[in-house]
Structure formats: structure tokens, C-alpha cells
């Protein structure tokens, strides 16, 4: 008994740590500089180094030691007021600890994989159904939103699977299959309307709206532009890609272009006040222009063509005066449309889809579609010639009472043939006989039980679309095989499954070589499907998905309108695309001498006028505040609420997303201080109170600088010298609206400038950007980490740090090009291993 009690004491003398596996040097360091606060008795911040073992092969233990490493590395620990280790000792500890942690991290990655098995996100699942079945039916809304972990919904840890998900996969699969297999013949949409035909489509309305036809043009006057004068095209017969072509010119516009907008409307939820703008086009005054656009429409959606109201160009505002005019005598700006053409659904190559649609052929190849009533009774030998063509016009059956269904004369053989063709594509790789067998068996037994062929097939396809082989990215620990690499590449750069070419490259083993991977990355990025990557990455990295989250207060910001928001969003998207396509430097995210502007944005930014609403790459004047992402209206809007800005929220946003600095949470044993901002009238004074409290100051020193650098930008991204107030202050500001001036209450003036965490001061946002650029590696590192997380579905781990460093070092040689970075990312161990 005595011995047992004494034993721990003896151990304690020889080494005070449970982390006995740490080398003596590290133990000495901890004992000299850390143990006073982090012993059993004090265990500040919950850290008790006497009891914490060093077993970094376990993930959670490793996380504790990695946090310790980071605190010592950044100099946060030991605290400034305590004894400091000499730099050499600090360096040696970090090397020692770092290599052990890195080794353990790598070993964990090798035995378990650095990415836990992950399911597709709801967006990926939707794209997967779309690409597999050649349909465009939206299904992602059926699923609960995927949680965002480490900034992205692709991170495996956050992708939970509830019972609801399993119910919804079935619902989505059924919806998709129903769309893929047409139950009635349809006529493809194919119209080519001249002016008179356009007018006739809504003659009564157009007449009331004072539209008219003159000189072979259908004229839409702008004084009654949208929402009144919309040209609605016929509904899409089924979901798919459609092409629209409009020929028009501007009238009475003083030689300037007028905007024409193509958007999509869903007949069920017609929202005239909030159109979903699809694309803007400048219609010139001198000669007619033909614009062509392709859009994905769901069944029953329709194209909607209109001119955007341009109050600043409406020269006649007096309704009386206008009403006394004949429509033709109105001399305000108008759109003269001479022709509208529309066709679809289209195939991949752009041709109008033939009957039956490719979605059907994917599932049933050349088997004929027959009316249900005309099917021979099950088991009968009555068989038409396979692949018998069907005349769509001859099949006007009601889809509900007597739908068309696929027919097979040799159900069992056809079922097997079709499944052998479809399943490997759906499962993104070769399929073992044992995997296929249950599907074949399911059809066989259904057929044997008298289930009609079409029902048995739809049921089995449904289970293929709900299979774990499709829902999960299949990766085994170790180096990924070609098919797993193919899926990683395509879900990274397309947010969708690999296509045939990529699967073939996997099958041939070519994806095992860097040369082929380079070629495939280029091919993927050049494909229009890479828009899905841009969309998914930007909406999360930069929070653009929240662009609509707050509506600017109309009293404070009377100049805000929908066209500004659409333009701002487009600016950021085009900016990123330019970085990618032009292999431009990551550093341009902070500062660039160019951006994309249109008339509305140029006015908003106070830049030299740009004519028209199509955004174009424009050089920015030297020395101005704009350029880079941080000062784009979209970013400034998503980092504010509708009424006011907060340097804390903006600062935190910039830290996390651009600088890659995640301020650690306040230690739990520090008593919570309830913020008290009473009596502090300006935001600067409010934050000074944060700084005065040591518990708050350590993080706010990091968070506040970018926040204050952006303080000169209001909630919609306009430049400001004064805040705006909701109550009268005795002073006003003049706001220029398109057609008039408005007054808002003037608040206190903005105090620009602040200082960095290390004390370097900056006077304004331009100076702040220069300070950021002085540490270009940090910016590249932060961006590379975001991309690596998005590309692999796991946040950057300790063992990845070295790889990130070598990427950054290599990238420096390539002037930090974004496209080069993508090529480097996919060559990392992290990307090529589970």
C-alpha cells in the first residue's frame, strides 16, 4: 500500500510530465517556461501539462499539442510579462515538437486518411444527378443545408447524415428519374418571332402599355419599362438548356446603349418585383445587335425579356404629357426589337434535342417508348422492332392517364445490358460483379413477380441513385487510385462528377502522371462546368451567398437599387474569373489596378463614367481606394448589415478569409467581461474599451485593423467621409440618385487609419493594403489553404503545413498565379492521398 502511494511521487520527481515520451529538451523547456501556469493546480486555459500525455498519434491529443505549438510559434506564449526563452531555445523546441507533430499527423493520414469518408454535398448531389441523367431539375432545395466547417460545406466532418437525408435522396432520385423519362411526347421549343408576332403574343397588354410596331421593330418605351413591358416566351416543355437570340437596337437614347435583360420566370411564383436577373446586354443605338444567351430552364419556366428601368434616362416624366402623345410620338429611350428566337432543349453540342431526349437514352438506350395502354400484357411475346422511332406529334396522350413508358421485348436481357452500362458511370469507376449482382437480382425478381419492365427499371435506377457508391467519395487510405483522383479533380473544379474523358484517363492509368493531370486540369477549367466551381468556391470563400441576406435601409441608402447589387456580384465573379483565366497573382485579391465595371458601378465608385450595363475590364486610376477584392461593393455589402457597418465583423471576416488568421477563442478561465460600450460615442471609442481589457486586446489587435481600414466604406460599398444617421442631426448629406438628388442625415465623420497588431500605423485603406502586400507569402498561404480545404474536403492539417510552404515558395517563382496554384494544389500529397 505504501509503495503504491509513493510510486507516483517518484515518477513526479524524475519527470513532472505525463508526456514522458517527449524528448528531454522539450520537457526542460516546458518546465522552465510553461509549468508555472499550466500545472495541475493552476491549469490555466484548461491546459495541465503535468497530466497531458504526448500521444499525437491520437487526433485529439495532437490538436492540443498543435495549439501549444502555435501559441509558442506566434510568440503569444510564454506571455510577454513572463520570463522569455532565448530565441535559440524557442526555435529548437519548435523544430523538435514540429517534426514530431508533423510525423504523427502524416502517420494518422496514412493509416486513416487525412479526409474522413465524405458524402457529396447537396449541391454536388444535384450536379451529379444532372450530369448523369442529362436533366436540369433542381433538387438541392429538398435537402437540409449542409453545415459549413472550416469555411466550406465540403469538409467531411461537418457533413452529417440524418434519417431525413436518406428519405430525401429517394425523393430527389424519383424526381430526377421522372424528369429523365418523359411520360408524354413534347414538341421542342422552337420559335422565331418577327416584330408583329412578338406584339401578337400579348397584344392587349402591349397596346395598353403603349408599345407599338414600326419599321419592322417592336418598340418598348422605357417610361414604362419593366415590370410592365415584359416579353414572355412560351414555357419550356421540359428541363434543359435553351438558347435565346434577340435582335434589337436602342431608340432616342442620345447615342448611348440601353440595357436589355434576359431572365427566367417560373410561372408558379411570378415575382415581378424581384426578377432573377440572368444576363444584361447593352443594346447600341447606331445599329441592331443580336445577342445570344443559353440558360438552363426547369420545365415550365420561361424566358422573360425586358428593358431595365433607367430613370436617369427618362427624359419625359410627366404622365399627362405622355398620355397625350400617340405611342409613336414618345421620344424617350426605347428598345426596338426586330426578332426573338428561342430553341431547346439543347444537347451538349448545342443542337436541339431529338426524340426521345438523351436523358431517356442514358437510361433506356434505344428501347421504344409506348403508351401504357398499348403495352402487351406482361410476359407476352409481342415485340416491336427494337429502336422503333416514335413520332412525337402522333403521341398526344395525357401523361397522367396513359403515360408513355419504356418497352422491352426481352426485359431480363435488356435490364442487364442497361444496368451494366449505367452503373459504372453512376459509381464513377469500375464495378465489381458482386456490387452489380444485387441490382440485377432486384430487377430479375421484380420481373418474375410480374412487375412491368418500366416499373422494375425505375425502381432499380432509383436505388442506384441512392447508393453509397454514388453518395460517398470512395477513397481508401494511402495513395488514391486513378478513379478516386478523377472524382477529386472533377468535384474540385466542376463541383460535379467526372465525365467520360476523365474516367477513361483514370482507367488507362494516365491520371497517375503529373503531365496528364496538368492536361486534365486545363481541360476542366476550360469547360463551362468550371462555373460551378467558381460559384461554389466564391459563394463560400467570400460569403457571396449572403449578398441578399440584408436589404439596405431605404431611408439611409436611397441610392441602392437592384441593378447595383447585380452589378456588384458580377464584378466579383468576373474579377475571380480573370484571376483564374489570366493566371493573375493571388496578391491582386488585395490590390489590383483593374476591375470590372459598368455604368452603375462606375457611378457608385465615383470613377470616370462607363457607358452601358455589360461589365468590362477597366483600368483604375492610380492611388485610389478601389482595386482588389476588399474594396468591391459585394464584399463590403456582405460584411455589413443593411443599416450599419461594424469594424469587428469586417475585421474578423478579412482575418479569416483573406489573411488566414483565425483569432483563437478567448480562454475559458478568463472571467467573461460583458462588453460595456455606454458613453463611447464613436466606434473607435467603443473598441478602445476592448483594447483596454487584456483579455479582449490580444484578439482585437488582430481583428480591428482591417475593420478600420474599411471604415471609409458604407454598407453598400460606397465611399464615405461621414456616417449617415437615421435621426436628424442638424446636418445633411447630398446623395446623387440617377434622376435626382436626395438628402440624408449626416452623422459624425469617419476617422480613417489605425495601426497593425505589431504597431505599424496606416493612414487609410491604400496604406493598409500596402502593409498587407509586404507579407505576400502570408496572403498566398492563406489562399492556398482555402483552395486545399475546398479541393480535398479536409482543413489544413499539421503535416500539410510543410506542403503549403513549399507551394508558396514555388508559387513565388510564378508570380503567385492563381492558375499555377491550382496546378500545384493537385500535385500535393494531401490531394493525391486519401
Amino acid at each position, binding site marked *: 500500500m505504501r509503495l503504491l502511494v509513493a510510486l507516483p511521487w517518484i515518477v513526479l520527481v524524475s519527470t513532472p510530465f505525463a508526456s514522458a515520451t517527449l524528448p528531454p529538451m522539450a520537457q526542460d523547456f516546458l518546465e522552465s517556461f510553461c509549468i508555472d501556469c499550466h500545472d495541475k493546480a493552476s491549469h490555466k486555459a484548461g491546459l495541465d501539462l503535468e497530466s497531458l500525455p504526448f500521444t499525437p498519434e491520437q487526433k*485529439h491529443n495532437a490538436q492540443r499539442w498543435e495549439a501549444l505549438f502555435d501559441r509558442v510559434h506566434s510568440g503569444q506564449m510564454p506571455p510577454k510579462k513572463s520570463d522569455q526563452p532565448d530565441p535559440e531555445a524557442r526555435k529548437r523546441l519548435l523544430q523538435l515538437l514540429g517534426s514530431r507533430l508533423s510525423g504523427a499527423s502524416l502517420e494518422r493520414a496514412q*493509416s*486513416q*486518411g487525412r479526409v*474522413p*469518408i465524405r458524402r457529396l454535398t447537396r449541391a454536388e448531389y444535384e450536379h451529379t444527378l444532372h450530369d448523369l441523367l442529362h436533366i436540369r431539375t433542381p433538387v438541392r432545395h429538398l435537402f*437540409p*443545408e449542409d*453545415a459549413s*466547417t*472550416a469555411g466550406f460545406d465540403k469538409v467531411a*466532418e*461537418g457533413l*452529417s*447524415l*440524418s*434519417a*431525413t*437525408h*436518406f*428519405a430525401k435522396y*429517394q425523393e430527389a432520385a*424519383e424526381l430526377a428519374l421522372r424528369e429523365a423519362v418523359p411520360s408524354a411526347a413534347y414538341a421542342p421549343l422552337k420559335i422565331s418571332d418577327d416584330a408583329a408576332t412578338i406584339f401578337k403574343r400579348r397584344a392587349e397588354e402591349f397596346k395598353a402599355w403603349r408599345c407599338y410596331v414600326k419599321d419592322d421593330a417592336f418598340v418598348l418605351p422605357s417610361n414604362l419599362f419593366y415590370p410592365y413591358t415584359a416579353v414572355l416566351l412560351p414555357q419550356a416543355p421540359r428541363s434543359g438548356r435553351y438558347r435565346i437570340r434577340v435582335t434589337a437596337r436602342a431608340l432616342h437614347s442620345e447615342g448611348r446603349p440601353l440595357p436589355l435583360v434576359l431572365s427566367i420566370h417560373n410561372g408558379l*411564383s411570378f415575382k415581378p418585383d424581384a426578377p432573377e436577373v440572368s444576363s444584361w446586354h447593352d443594346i447600341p443605338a447606331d445599329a441592331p445587335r443580336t445577342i445570344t444567351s443559353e440558360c438552363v430552364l426547369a420545365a415550365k419556366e420561361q424566358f422573360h425579356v425586358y428593358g431595365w428601368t433607367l430613370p436617369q434616362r427618362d427624359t419625359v416624366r410627366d404622365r399627362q404629357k405622355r398620355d397625350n402623345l400617340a405611342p409613336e410620338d414618345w421620344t424617350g429611350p426605347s428598345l426596338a426589337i426586330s426578332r426573338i428566337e428561342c430553341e431547346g432543349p439543347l444537347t451538349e453540342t448545342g443542337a436541339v434535342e431529338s426524340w426521345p431526349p438523351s436523358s431517356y437514352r442514358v437510361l433506356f438506350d434505344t428501347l421504344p417508348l409506348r403508351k401504357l395502354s398499348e403495352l402487351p400484357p406482361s410476359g407476352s411475346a409481342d415485340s416491336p422492332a427494337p429502336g422503333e422511332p416514335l413520332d412525337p406529334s402522333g403521341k398526344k396522350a395525357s401523361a*397522367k392517364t396513359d403515360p408513355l413508358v419504356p418497352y422491352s421485348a426481352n426485359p431480363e436481357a435488356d435490364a442487364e445490358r442497361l444496368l451494366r452500362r449505367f452503373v459504372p458511370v453512376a459509381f464513377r469507376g469500375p464495378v465489381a460483379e*458482386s*456490387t452489380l449482382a*444485387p441490382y440485377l437480382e*432486384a430487377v430479375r425478381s421484380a420481373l418474375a413477380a410480374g412487375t412491368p419492365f418500366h416499373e422494375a427499371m425505375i*425502381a432499380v435506377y*432509383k*436505388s442506384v441513385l*441512392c*447508393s*453509397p*457508391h454514388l453518395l*460517398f467519395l*470512395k477513397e*481508401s*487510405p494511402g495513395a488514391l487510385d486513378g478513379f478516386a483522383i478523377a472524382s477529386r479533380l472533377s468535384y474540385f473544379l466542376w463541383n460535379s462528377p467526372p465525365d467520360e474523358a476523365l474516367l477513361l484517363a483514370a482507367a488507362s492509368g494516365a491520371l497517375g502522371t503529373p503531365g496528364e493531370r496538368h492536361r486534365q486540369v486545363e481541360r476542366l477549367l476550360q469547360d463551362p462546368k468550371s462555373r460551378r466551381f467558381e460559384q461554389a468556391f466564391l459563394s463560400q470563400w467570400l460569403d457571396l451567398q449572403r449578398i441578399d*441576406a*440584408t436589404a439596405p*435601409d431605404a431611408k439611409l441608402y436611397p441610392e441602392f437599387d437592384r441593378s447595383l447589387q447585380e452589378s456588384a456580384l458580377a464584378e466579383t465573379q468576373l474579377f475571380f474569373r480573370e484571376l483564374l483565366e489570366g493566371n493573375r497573382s493571388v496578391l491582386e485579391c488585395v490590390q489590383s489596378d483593374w476591375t470590372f465595371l459598368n455604368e452603375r458601378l462606375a457611378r457608385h465608385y465615383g470613377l470616370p463614367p462607363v457607358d452601358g450595363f455589360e461589365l468590362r475590364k477597366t483600368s483604375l486610376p492610380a492611388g485610389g481606394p478601389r482595386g482588389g477584392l476588399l474594396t468591391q461593393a459585394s464584399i463590403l455589402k456582405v460584411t455589413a*448589415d*443593411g*443599416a450599419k457597418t*461594424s469594424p469587428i465583423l469586417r475585421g474578423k471576416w478579412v482575418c479569416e478569409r483573406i489573411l488566414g488568421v483565425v483569432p483563437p*477563442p478567448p480562454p*475559458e478561465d478568463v472571467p*467573461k*467581461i*460583458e*462588453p*460595456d*460600450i*455606454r458613453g463611447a460615442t464613436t466606434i473607435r471609442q*467603443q473598441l478602445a474599451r476592448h483594447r483596454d481589457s487584456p483579455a479582449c486586446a490580444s484578439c482585437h489587435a488582430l481583428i480591428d485593423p482591417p475593420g478600420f481600414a474599411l471604415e471609409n466604406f458604407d454598407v453598400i460599398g460606397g465611399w464615405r467621409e461621414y456616417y449617415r444617421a*437615421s435621426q436628424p442631426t442638424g446636418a445633411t448629406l447630398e446623395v446623387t440618385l440617377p434622376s435626382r438628388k436626395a438628402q440624408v442625415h449626416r452623422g459624425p465623420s469617419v476617422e480613417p487609419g489605425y495601426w497593425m497588431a505589431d504597431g505599424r500605423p496606416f493612414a487609410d485603406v491604400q496604406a493598409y493594403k500596402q502593409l498587407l502586400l509586404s507579407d505576400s507569402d502570408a496572403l498566398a498561404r492563406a489562399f492556398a489553404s482555402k483552395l486545399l480545404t475546398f479541393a480535398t474536403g479536409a482543413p489544413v492539417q499539421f503535416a500539410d503545413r510543410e506542403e503549403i510552404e513549399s507551394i508558396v515558395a514555388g508559387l513565388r517563382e510564378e508570380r503567385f498565379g492563381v492558375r499555377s496554384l491550382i496546378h500545384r494544389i493537385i500535385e500535393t500529397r494531401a490531394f493525391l492521398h486519401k
Partner: protein
Amino acid sequence: MHLALRTPLSRRSLLRAGAVSLALPILNAMLPRNASAAATERLSAPKRLLLIGRNLGVHAPFLFPETPGLDYETTPYLQYLEAHRGDFTLFSGISHLGYNDHKSEPGLFTGVAWDRIKDPIREHHNTVSLDQFAAEHLGGQTRYRNLVIGSPVQWHFSWTEKGVPVPSERSQTEVFKQLFLERTHAELQSEIQRLRSGRSILDQVISESKTLARTLGSEDRDRIELMFSSVREAEQALLRAEAWVTTPKPSVTYRAPEKDPSHDSLSERENLWFDLCRLAFQTDSTRVILLTLGDAGRAKLDGLSLGHHDASHHGKDEKKIEQLALIEAAEFQLFSRFLSQTKQTPEPSGSLFEHTAILNASNLGNASAHTCENLPVLLSGGGFAHKGHVLFDRKHNTPLSNLFVRILQQLNVPTDRFGSSTSVLGDI
């Protein structure tokens, strides 16, 4: 055979259910519908549980009185509940000990030790929430075992025993449709077929996952194992749906919502949620609901210029607190209206109110300081001996899990522990 012909459930499906803990409901489903236990029990008014979760706290100085008991002095918020004095208990000095920050969301109704959930990136360390646990016992006889509805919160309020978050259905029109919209004969037929094929798809998911798991590391195999719990749950839901599919949905005299109220229409939205809860209970469509209320954004209310999240982090700024009070006062009024309506909803004995334990709580005690002590917790209805204001030690809080045990016992759920309970709360 005889059995299979007469009932919606085949014996095969009964066997398939295996370990599924649906003993009572399965028997129930296998009875002819007109003799169902649900119908019989309706006569004696079943017990229900409604949890209302909010994630931005309530401004404590405007809520909590200083005097305990039924004679508490009223407060700016309690004045809206004056009509219900004696019918509810407000607890002060109650919380999950050790909790901290917004990340306490997943623990509000589970009460697990803080260490298990404080790092949201580490999944599966949570366990069953009060609604799911109660549903295990109360959910057997109704069309839906339980409902998880309302605006989703980042880290979820409802959790399964295995620690899988249960997503919230955010669409009111969808909830109404599920509960009350009747299907045509043809729709029913395809529904039946869909449910049957649904189960075989889930079987296939299980067997394929098992094969898949062989190529994985041990951590991934644990993840797959966890996934099975969700598949089995989905299976139970299908079985239940099959058992109920031919029973007509209850008809209610309520105008079906055509679209979901916008997120900034506070009263329209919350009233509709409350109405849906009341109707779901009244028609005995379910007996357990977890309703999440709130929207961090800016609601359309007279005089309101701040978003809820913003105002709740007021930093003691009086103007911001005034703004916060506008929102919270509106919420108390809406809640009061709901209580009145459940009181006016008659049951075979008494009113719906008396048979429904309604627990309204938030995971933050002080949103401005991000603390989780002294949570706003208000219990009403349910046949408790309500005490007005129960005042515990505001420095050394009473575990909220103790109240959860008390609620479970009131619902006749045989248990003496839940979450981090240390005993049963005896004050009500």
C-alpha cells in the same frame, strides 16, 4: 397470412424491423384502424411535449423578477404573460453548468457535459435531445413520431442518441402539407409503392456500406456505423408511414398557407408556427415537437432598425437594448397569444394546455457577454404545479437537466436521469 391481409404491415416488415424499438406502434399498426389504440387514447387526452428553442437569449433585467413565488413583481416582459400567472414557472438560476458561447446550441436540449460539444468540428460527441428521448416513449401512436421544425440554427437543437443532428424543417407550407393535405387515390397508390421500394433501397444502402467499410480505416468504419443508425431511423419512419398511409389525414378548418412568410415578418411567421403546433397536437398527429424560433436578421417592426443578433450583442448600450426589447416584447406577446389559444382548445378532459408541457428556453443567458449561466427557461402547461417564479442561486446554478428529468417524469417517461442531471427538480 391472415394477418398480412388485414393489416397495412406485413409480417415480413415486422421481422425486418428486428431490433427496432417500435413494439407498441407496430402492434398498433397491425390492428384494424378503427380499433386503434390511438383512437381509444384520444378519449383520455394524451400527454405532449413542446420544446421551443431560441438561440439569442433574452435580456435578463427585463425578464427576471427578484421575488420568488406566484406573487413575483411583474417585469417588462412578464407583463405580457400576466393573463397566465399561475400557469407557468419561470426559473432563474438554472443552466447547463460550464457551458459557454454560441457553441452551446447543440447542448441546450441534450445537457451533455460541455467538454463533449465545445468543439463543433468534433462530431458525434453529443447525445440524445429531450424531444427525441421523449418521442421514444410518446411517439408510438401518432402519424409522426415527432416533429423538428422552425428556422434551423447553426449547430442544431435536436440530436439522436448516437449524436447525429436532426435537421429542422423550415418550411411552414411543407409542414402543413405533411400534416393535413389529403392525397388523391392515385397519389396514395404511388405513395404506397414508394414507401415499399424505399425500404428495399435502405436495405441495399446498408449492405453496400458494409462492403464499402471493408476498404476503410477504423475511424471511417465508425462513421459508417453511425450512418447505419440514421438508415435504421429512416426505415422506422417508412414503416410508420406505411402503417398510416391509408388512414385519412385529419381535416382542419385552417387556411392552408400558400407560401412561407418572409423571414423578416416576425409575427406572421411565429404565429403560423404556433398554429401548426397547436393543430398538430389537437389532431394528435404527433405528441412531441421541437420548434426553433428566431431570425438573426432585422424584422419588420415599428421602430426597429437593428437585426436581432446585432441588438442582442448590445454591449449595455441603452439604445441597442431598447431595440432588443422591441423584438423580445413582440415575441412574448406572440407566445402569450399561443398559450391563450392552447387554453381555448378543448380536449375530452380539460384543454390542450393542461396536457402539453411547453418549455421555452434559450442556450444563452446573456448574449451580449456570450455567457450561458442563468438561462431564460419558462415552463408552462402540462399539468405541473406551477410556481410563478422559482429562484435558484444565480451564482451557483441548478442543472437544467434536473428540470428535464422532472418534465420526462411528468410525461410518464420512466427515468430518473437525463443529460447531466444530478437529481430531479422537485420545485414544481
